[in-house]
């Protein structure tokens, strides 16, 4: 359920529209009444819809939303895998990304239409969840792009000065060498299946 203020706002909006519906006969007779109808039937509902849609889009980027489909729950569990090298676990456990939006932080593109692409892919996920069924093995739609890693690591000192990175920097920036060619484990499913998990006390 969305937060109570949103529910209340929508209920108020519906009540105002209902009042407009039953009061239309009287309100259309006066200029002020017509303005009231404009607010009741057009302005307020549009404002509420925009707010609701905006909040919904924000919510759809949260970790909780991604993991609300059972297909993703093993991946969610991999955030707690006891493996300091696994990318998802390392980023989550060390708070390198906001835990509230951890899936979205790493799996959306950061270009101009990154959010749009992510949301369209989300529609494909929902279609797979409800209609076509998920594939036997979950996989990315395309190879993981370095640009998603570099969005954060780009010029960070720890990344640039790391000895293994130095000879590869140009290739990493160009995307000709994948970050994942060395950082091979993104989600440590073996640890998940073995129930070897880590959580701060």
């Amino acid at each position, binding site marked *: 359920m*969305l937060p109570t203020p949103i529910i209340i706002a929508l209920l108020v909006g519906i009540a105002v*529209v*209902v009042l407009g519906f039953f009061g239309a006969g009287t309100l259309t007779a006066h200029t002020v009444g017509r303005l009231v109808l404009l607010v009741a039937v057009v302005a307020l509902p*549009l404002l*509420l*819809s925009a707010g609701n849609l905006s909040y919904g889009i924000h*919510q759809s980027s949260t970790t909780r939303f991604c993991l609300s489909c059972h297909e993703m729950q093993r991946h969610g569990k991999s955030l707690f895998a006891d493996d300091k090298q696994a990318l998802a676990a390392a980023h989550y456990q060390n708070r390198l990304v906001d835990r509230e939006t951890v899936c979205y932080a790493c799996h959306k593109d950061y270009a101009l239409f990154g959010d749009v692409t992510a949301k369209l892919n989300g529609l494909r996920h929902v279609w797979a*969840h409800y209609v076509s069924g998920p594939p036997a093995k979950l996989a990315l739609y395309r190879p993981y792009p370095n640009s998603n890693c570099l969005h954060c690591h780009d010029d960070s000192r720890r990344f640039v000065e790391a000895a293994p990175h130095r000879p590869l920097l140009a290739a990493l920036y160009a995307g000709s060498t994948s970050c994942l060619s060395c950082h091979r484990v993104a989600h440590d499913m073996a640890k998940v299946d073995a129930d070897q998990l880590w959580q701060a006390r």
Partner: protein
Amino acid sequence: MRDGREAMTARVRRAARVTGLGLLVQLGAAVHWTPATFIAAAAFGTPLVLAGAGLFLAAVWRNIKAKGAV
């Protein structure tokens, strides 16, 4: 035959029905929040509200035209 104000009232009520339906869809999604209901709210609820707003503005436009104000 209905006079101009009755026709205007009927059109406004039709717009209010469509808008109200859109808000109801959004309310339903907000109460039972899942990926599917979010998409239903975005794909049906919001367009219904937009359609209701369009119907209202069309009703106003027809009323203005009928009065010869434009």
